[in-house]
């Protein structure tokens, strides 16, 4: 009895309202797995995806319910906290999850691995991301990273009868383990140097009880930075990205490209700006160097890629470089710009991946650049979102990407890192080479064959898109088309009316009030 009482007294204080989004996704994962035990087409094709969508929808609703501005509020003692940064980025995870459900619904990976397993793993990974976004100490950080990564390794290999999918999963596992080990080692050294695991305590210790030039601390930061850079595919820790992205089933690639990257940046923002902000003088130049290398390597690598997925992987590397610049600045404005860019990054990448998914299922060229030939005239409903996504990724005005880059550059200049802003511009210039190539392939090929006309419409003469078949009509995959169109529309909308997201980004910026505003 007494032991029980003592245990009750020592039990952590949990804010159930604050933790409810996490419960929604983690609980959702369990429910989805259980529901998948029901046999039958309905349960597999409708019920399980529906439950997944329900869990994510509930999480979105609960996150909005929890929304508040200002400093973070602890929810499980000092382990987790919620603040606009955590909530805002969680929303991005959930939206990506919803899009992935649509993308995966007709995919072979889903049939091969089992619906329940696939969506269960995905929800588990999202739970890991949610933890990561609100981690307040080194332990939860690492738990989050692992909870995020391990389901992903499996998801990469979920197309179990395709060799490249297995290869991708295995490669990710091996390299990912190296990354996790590095990170863990770094976290251990930081703990060793400061004697604390909580971010706030670590930050207090640095400069007070621990010297800024303490080799143990600095080695720890170096190792942790390397581990996190790996997750965010920052060069030179990016080498796995093209291979894994190419091999994984495309819905999983889309999920990784957007959600994992967002999660990685969530933790990078939190770790460097909350726990290590006192050592900014030390780490900022190193991260700046990494950002420059990433921008150059990503953009240069993307040129001359013939696989769209590989191209988007390299482009994702380059984009990580831009966002790292926002972290380096280390001001509230930098934080806002990075969060804002992550949202924009979601819209434009999901639009692009939607088109890749729609095309690779019907084209004999798979995800090759050739699968887009003549798409402009064959199915403009796919060609336009791709065009918008590419222009936005390149940072054309009137698209979300332009506003995002503008925000990042302005943050860099404002924080006396003007040369990083210049690097972003140089990188964008290089990126036009491969982004515009996609647009050219879609629109600049001549027309040839005649499509059977829909009733009351004139027949259309079109260029036969490689591997053309009745299914090539995007209307054969309405859910993919819908997500793609929504994302493209959002890209344009927020490119023209960015103010709603500016306000959200501003709220996010207030999460870490210690920052120089």
């Amino acid at each position, binding site marked *: 009895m007494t032991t029980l009482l003592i245990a009750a007294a020592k039990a952590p204080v949990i804010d159930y309202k604050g933790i409810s989004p996490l419960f929604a996704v983690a609980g959702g994962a369990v429910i989805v797995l259980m529901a998948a035990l029901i046999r039958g087409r309905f349960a597999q094709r409708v019920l399980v995806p529906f439950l997944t969508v329900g869990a994510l929808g509930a999480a979105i609703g609960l996150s909005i319910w929890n929304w508040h501005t200002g400093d973070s509020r602890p929810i499980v003692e000092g382990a987790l906290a919620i603040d606009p940064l955590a909530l805002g980025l969680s929303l991005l995870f959930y939206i990506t999850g919803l899009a992935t459900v649509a993308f995966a619904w007709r995919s072979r990976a889903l049939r091969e691995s089992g619906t329940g397993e696939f969506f269960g793993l995905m929800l588990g990974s999202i739970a890991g991301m949610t933890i990561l976004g609100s981690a307040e100490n080194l332990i939860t950080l690492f738990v989050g990273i692992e909870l995020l990564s391990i389901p992903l390794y499996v998801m990469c290999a979920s197309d179990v009868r395709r060799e490249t999918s297995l290869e991708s999963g295995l490669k990710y596992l091996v390299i990912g383990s190296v990354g996790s080990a590095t990170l863990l080692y770094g976290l251990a050294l930081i703990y060793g140097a400061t004697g604390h695991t909580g971010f706030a305590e670590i930050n207090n210790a640095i400069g007070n009880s621990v010297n800024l030039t303490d080799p143990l601390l600095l080695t720890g930061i170096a190792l942790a930075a390397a581990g996190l850079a790996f997750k965010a595919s920052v060069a*030179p820790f990016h080498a796995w990205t093209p291979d894994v992205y190419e091999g994984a089933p495309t819905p999983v690639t889309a999920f990784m490209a957007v959600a994992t990257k967002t999660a990685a940046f969530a933790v990078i923002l939190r770790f460097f700006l909350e726990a290590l902000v006192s050592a900014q003088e030390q780490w900022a130049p190193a991260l700046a160097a990494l950002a420059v290398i990433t921008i150059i390597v990503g953009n240069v690598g993307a040129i001359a890629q013939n696989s769209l997925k590989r191209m988007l992987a390299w482009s994702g590397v380059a984009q990580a470089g831009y966002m790292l610049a926002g972290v380096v600045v280390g001001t509230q404005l930098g934080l806002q710009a990075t969060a804002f860019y992550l949202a924009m990054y979601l819209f434009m990448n999901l639009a692009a991946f939607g088109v890749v998914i729609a095309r690779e299922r019907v084209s004999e060229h798979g995800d090759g650049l050739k699968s887009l030939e003549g798409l402009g005239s064959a199915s403009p409903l796919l060609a336009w979102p791709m065009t918008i996504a590419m222009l936005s990724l390149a940072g054309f005005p009137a698209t979300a990407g332009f506003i995002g880059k503008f925000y990042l550059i302005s943050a860099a200049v404002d924080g006396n890192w003007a040369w990083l802003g210049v690097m972003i511009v140089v990188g964008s210039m290089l990126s036009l080479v491969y982004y515009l190539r996609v647009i050219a392939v879609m629109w600049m090929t001549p027309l040839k064959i005649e499509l059977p006309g829909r009733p009351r419409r004139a027949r259309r003469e079109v260029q036969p898109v490689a591997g053309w078949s009745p299914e090539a009509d995007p209307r054969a995959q309405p859910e993919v088309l819908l997500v793609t169109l929504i994302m493209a529309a959002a890209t344009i909308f927020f490119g023209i009316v960015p103010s709603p997201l500016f306000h959200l980004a501003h709220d996010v910026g207030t999460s870490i009030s210690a920052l120089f505003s």
Partner: protein
Amino acid sequence: MSATAWGWLVLAFPLAGTVVISLGWRALPGRMAGWLGSGAILAAFVCAVGATVKLQKLAPHARHASSTLFDYAHSAGINIGMSIYVDPLSLFMALVVSGVSFLIHVYSVSYMTSDRGYSRYFAYLNYFVFSMLLLVLAGNIIILIVGWAGVGMASYILISFWYRRTTATAAGMKAFVMNVIGDVALVLAAFLLWRHAGHHVSFNGIFAGSKQAFGTNNGTLIAACLLLTVGAFAKSAQVPLHTWLPDAMEGPTPVSALIHAATMVTAGVYLIARFHPLYELAPTAADITAGFAAFTLFYAATCALAITDLKRIIAYSTISQIGYMMLGVSTGGYDGGLFHLMTHAFFKALLFMGAGSVIGAMAGIQDIDRMGGFRKSMRFTYVTFVVGALALASFPPMSGWFSKDEILGFDVHRGGYYLVLAIIGFAAALITAFYSFRMVFRVFHGAAVPEAQSLERGELAHGEHLNPMTGEHEDTDVGFPGAEHHIAEREWPMKFAMSILAVLAIIGGIVGIPGVTHWLRNFLDPVFADSKFINTQPTDTSSWIGLVVGAGIALAGITIAYVCYIRQPGTTGRIAARVPALQRLFVNRWYWDELYDALFVRPSATLGNFGRYVVERAFVQGTLVGGATRIVGVGTAIARGLENGYIRAYAVLMLLGFGGLGLYFLLQAAF
């Protein structure tokens, strides 16, 4: 409704016409676009009349009103409203512009029938009228510049209307470039006035501010006025910015009638009349303007003597006549200048319409050497053309007689320098009378050419489709003139427009007969009430003496033409052979184009070629871009090489990366 409400409606109708025709052209059957456009302009004219009636009810000193619709630009230190200013001057211009435009629209309904760009034509034409009305109704100098640029744009797209004709597109570009010179000058003038005259953009604000800020002949004010003059000269094709107007004849003939004779080119005259308080404060600038105007009117008349392209003769005549108007408004004879603006709009539009009819009968040929003897076959065109020519020659009692001689009479009255200018004007009047009837006699008299003979038989000539300037073959698809030609004798809308203009060209002078009617002067007086020349008017007697002298000169000129072309044909050839140098000078329009070619075009082309072949190709493309491309290419190869698919390679790369990071942090720890 207030006068300004009518004023807004004047603007609204042509704009609506443009929008409706541009967007709805697919749904408009046959000549619908043409009638729609004409209707919009007629509505604008009616509204202008409404505004005038409303304004005339007020006391003379109160006859002006402005109205602002919304903030056009509102920024630190400057607040520009989208506003109009309605006073007798702007309404006078609006009435002339919308009235003549309506008639030319009606004429075009027929004339352009077979053109494949029919709806596009009327959308452009409505847009032009909108811009022109915006220009004259503008409530401040910024909106005036907007309208000014708008008409420049309209002029450009209508000169290049047959966009597959290389000569037409080249002419359009030339006109645009020349006009931009004027636009820049106008913007600079606006800036100078804003900067130095108390930060005003409204006209009355600028005038009041200038009176306060500048004394008579202040250097800044002279500079501002001369810049205004440059703007006016570019738009009104005055020497030395005149070379674009003859080339502008590449556009369809009704466009020449509307834009390059009756309305747009007179915008410069309006500008100077509008800014007359500044010119009166800076008499030096006014005198320089007048000097150039006098030179222009004489120079252009001599060119019209020698050229053989029918439309270009009328174009040079336009330059010359605008010279008279400029002379009038820059020397203080505002009523005369604007009076001539109005009568010139009537008879010059009429002449162009007649020329269009003749060119239609000639199946597109414009050379008067190929024409002759149309008197019998084109009765209607002949009569109206003679009316136009008489008015241009200022033969009594045509409208041109009253208006031109009012300008010259005023300048004789001012004496001195202005007397010299007036004498130049009288000399040019003799040439004008001569070349007017040179056209009449060469085109309508003499032996009938094959086209005229076939027309007498009732058949309209069908020539090959050729570019009249270069002789290149053309098809009749969109971008080239249409397949059919149209003459006034067979199209009632053309006849209608020409009849009304002919009547106006005859009786238009009624608004300003010295000693009898002073209607125009009384109407405009509220605008020029502040002028120091308001009482410097010649007496009625001396006006009539001037008119008699003018009539004598006109009669002399016509007689000489009659002798040269009817009584003793070939006289002109003998004269030309006697003084070949003069003939060459006139035919080559005094070598202005060649001068500009040598001064500006060729040096620019040389510079451009240097930039293209040396800077661009060798340095930028070869060294900079080529070098950068090669660097990126090598980088791509390296990146792809590292990406070999083996995990061990990736691990090594990560290790290297971590090594670098670790080294950096440890070095920090060490120092």
